[in-house]
């Protein structure tokens, strides 16, 4: 299969085209996307949660705070997700090669939390005040699915994926 090497807004220099074609071949040989990466990409569609609100990542101390502040504090990474009518704050700390999560729902309310990660799905229940803790969470992409359990509670929601 061959691809047209130039888009419409390039000045078509045939020398550049030949060089880029050679480099493209070298990239294909030395740094192609690994098969496992492409397989994971194809499998991503099955992780959709079509019946839940999406809670957007509103804060991540890893990028929304100067690196020096994170370092000097030496504390856990802090994340916050916002869904309509509900937010969730999560502290992530390293425990060996895995992660420990401590979280809080706001406004406080009981819920069941499915933590989706590379190691599978870890389910925990919050206490009556919406606090929860989970251990042995794998590094890599993580998303939380939250099912409030109180009567007349907020709708269920799912957080954006974040690499931990």
């Amino acid at each position, binding site marked *: 299969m061959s691809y047209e090497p130039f888009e*419409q807004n390039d000045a078509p220099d045939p020398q*550049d085209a030949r060089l880029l074609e*050679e*480099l493209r071949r070298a990239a294909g*040989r030395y740094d192609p996307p690994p098969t496992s990466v492409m397989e994971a990409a194809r499998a991503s569609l099955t992780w959709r949660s079509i019946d839940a609100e999406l809670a957007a990542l509103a804060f991540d101390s890893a*990028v929304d705070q100067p690196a020096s502040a994170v370092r000097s504090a030496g504390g856990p*990474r802090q994340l916050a997700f916002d869904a309509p009518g509900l937010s969730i704050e999560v502290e992530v700390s390293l425990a060996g090669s895995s992660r420990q999560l401590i979280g809080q729902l706001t406004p406080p309310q009981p819920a069941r939390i499915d933590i989706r990660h590379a190691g599978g799905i870890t389910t925990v229940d919050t206490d009556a005040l919406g606090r929860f803790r989970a251990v042995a969470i794998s590094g890599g992409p993580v998303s939380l699915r939250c099912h409030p359990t109180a009567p007349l509670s907020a709708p269920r929601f799912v957080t954006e994926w974040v690499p931990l």
Partner: protein
Amino acid sequence: MGATFDERRLAQEAAMGDQRAWDGLVDRFGELVWSTARAWGLNPEQGADAVQVTWLRLAEQLDRLQVNHERLGVWLAVTARRESLRLLRAGRETQPGPDVSSGPPAATAAAGSARDGLLWRLVHELPEHCRRMLRILVTTPPPSHEEVAAALDLPVASVGALRADCLRDFRSRMAKISIKEQLGDS
């Protein structure tokens, strides 16, 4: 450049849960997402995480109309760049630094064509901004200027000139090497 009819259709069908259409999107844009993570210096393990988060986010958002089906490549490149930078910053204290290895190991290079190995090593000897630019440009299929700009956080209008500069720099390095070889100085 707008999406081709095919990409639009794939996006619409994938949004409704059609796995085959989704696979078509992964085939079309899989390398762009990987190249973006690698261009920003992520090692293969970090790159795998950045790529996976990017596709998981697309799967979650495709049917919520938060993604413009016309500009899927741009959305993917922006997301892959942001997640790559997030991983670099979050992982700074716990993981090895960015991958600044200079291309193929000697043994691998010898197994391929010598010229390919040499070219790939030269890419890694370029100044940072040109190394990034070339790493994105050599994606298959070739990315649009809009996608390159999104992946590298550049104004679209600057891509053409920067690309020409970087190719010129690359060529002059190639010329120096071939002069050295002719003088038996390698």
